[in-house]
């Protein structure tokens, strides 16, 4: 595309945006709200992730071996665990090692274990500590592994982790559905604005066709108009998020000491990469719909 044509298209796009006034503002507004919600959601989840990362990493399945199991079944089990696609790590902990750890945990109250800490008396069982690649997989993997031969029983916070993961999953889905609805509204409004422009410019378009403008030359200004609406609609929430985040971080740091937030620069860098392209996509989608339906070239 020639620089001159590019300038022409952008110029025409801005003229239309100014001329369409309230429709342009409404389109930008809905794009902004959509992306503001998405952006806030992202900011929140990045920080929550950071906060819960260690907690989540502590989540694991402890597999106690069936005491009746012979060496063969244990070997077989070990192989299965090692090759399980969803498992990150399967670490064997013998009952002696477990006893040592227990002692270490009890510290100066380790005397409580006296008498049962000998090799013969040790009541603990041999076990595997299993870590899944994704913490959310724990319930599923546990259900599967439970049935393996040689398994005594599992301990993975059953009844606690499932609802937790279900809840976070649900929140995510509701958020997504809500944003999809808003995005559809944004696209619709942009399409409507562009349709208005096509209508206002019908005379110009007719003459352009008579004097031999190419179809794409006629279309581009409308695509640009949509994109500009989308980009402006994306920049507004970025500012809101920037200042909002600064303020929130400031408040949290002076009131709630133990929380560490992701620095503003880092988080902005992350969300700009998502929000701006999304704004453009909404704009281009909206204008393409109108160009396709109402611009007969």
């Amino acid at each position: 595309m020639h620089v001159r044509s590019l300038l022409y298209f952008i110029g025409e796009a801005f003229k239309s945006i100014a001329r369409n006034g309230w429709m342009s503002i409404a389109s930008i507004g809905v794009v902004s709200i959509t992306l503001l919600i998405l952006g806030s959601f992202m900011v929140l989840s990045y920080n929550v992730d950071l906060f819960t990362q260690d907690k989540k990493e502590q989540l694991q399945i402890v597999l106690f071996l069936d005491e009746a199991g012979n060496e063969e079944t244990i070997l077989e089990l070990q192989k299965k665990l090692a090759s399980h696609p969803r498992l990150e790590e399967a670490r064997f902990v013998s009952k002696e090692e477990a006893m040592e750890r227990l002692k270490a945990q009890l510290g100066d109250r380790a005397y409580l274990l006296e008498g049962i800490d000998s090799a013969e008396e040790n009541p603990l069982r041999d076990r595997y500590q299993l870590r899944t690649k994704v913490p959310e997989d724990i319930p599923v993997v546990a259900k599967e592994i439970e049935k393996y031969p040689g398994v005594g029983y599992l301990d993975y916070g059953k009844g606690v982790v499932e609802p937790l993961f279900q809840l976070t999953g649900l929140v995510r889905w509701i958020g997504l559905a809500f944003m999809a609805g808003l995005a559809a509204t944004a696209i619709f409004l942009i399409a409507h604005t562009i349709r208005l422009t096509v209508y206002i410019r019908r005379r110009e378009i007719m003459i352009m066709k008579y004097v031999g403008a190419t179809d794409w030359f006629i279309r581009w200004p409308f695509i640009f108009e949509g994109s500009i609406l989308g980009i402006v609609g994306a920049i507004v929430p970025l500012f809101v998020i920037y200042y909002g985040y600064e303020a929130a971080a400031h408040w949290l740091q002076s009131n709630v000491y133990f929380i560490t937030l992701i620095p503003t620069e880092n988080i902005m860098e992350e969300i700009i990469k998502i929000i701006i392209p999304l704004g453009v996509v909404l704009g281009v989608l909206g204008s393409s719909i109108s160009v396709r339906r109402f611009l007969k070239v």
Partner: protein
Amino acid sequence: MIEIYHLYKKYLKNELYALKDINLIIDRGEFVFVVGHSGSGKSTLLKLLLREILPTKGSIKIFGRDITRLKNREIPFLRRNIGMVFQDFRLLEDRNVFENVAFSLRVIGTSPREIRKRVPLTLELVGLKNKAFKRPHELSGGEQQRVCVARAIVNRPAMLLADEPTGNLDPATSMEIMTLFQDINIRGTTVIVATHAKDIVDHFQKRVVVLENNQLVSDQERGAYFNAR
């Protein structure tokens, strides 16, 4: 320059043909009037030449190419070689004369320098040199039609089509506009004018093609309006 063979056009949903078995050859540099009663198919013929519509049957060769077979993306390039003048001028009210004429260059990607050179020359040719910065509504009908003509020829097309260009003008102004077409024709542009204006056709003594009942019934050099039958 234009070769039309066995051209038929029936609009969808219509019972009757708008044009039936038209055969017509127009050479480079000719001046042709197309006359006929209302509904005889004059506008349809011009629309076919501009590839605004496709014929039902038959072929239209322009500059040696059958334009009925052009791909959609080739149509703009055909139109860059054909200027079109309308009865109702179709000027853009929100910009001045200069910009109305420059418009047809801008949208085909002509450089600003070329536009600054070409537009004043064209305005001079149509006699609007000192009205460049007036808006269309500040002009008389005849002047508005001159702007429309300037817009059509500023790109130096090989051919100029006009559909009842004097339909909205008084006789004296009509004569002026037709004289302008003649000037343009003398400079080498092929001109085809569809018109009802009997006096004008009789006065100019050009080639006259007569359409009647949607058929070509007469084609005479130095003809007059309806002198064919």
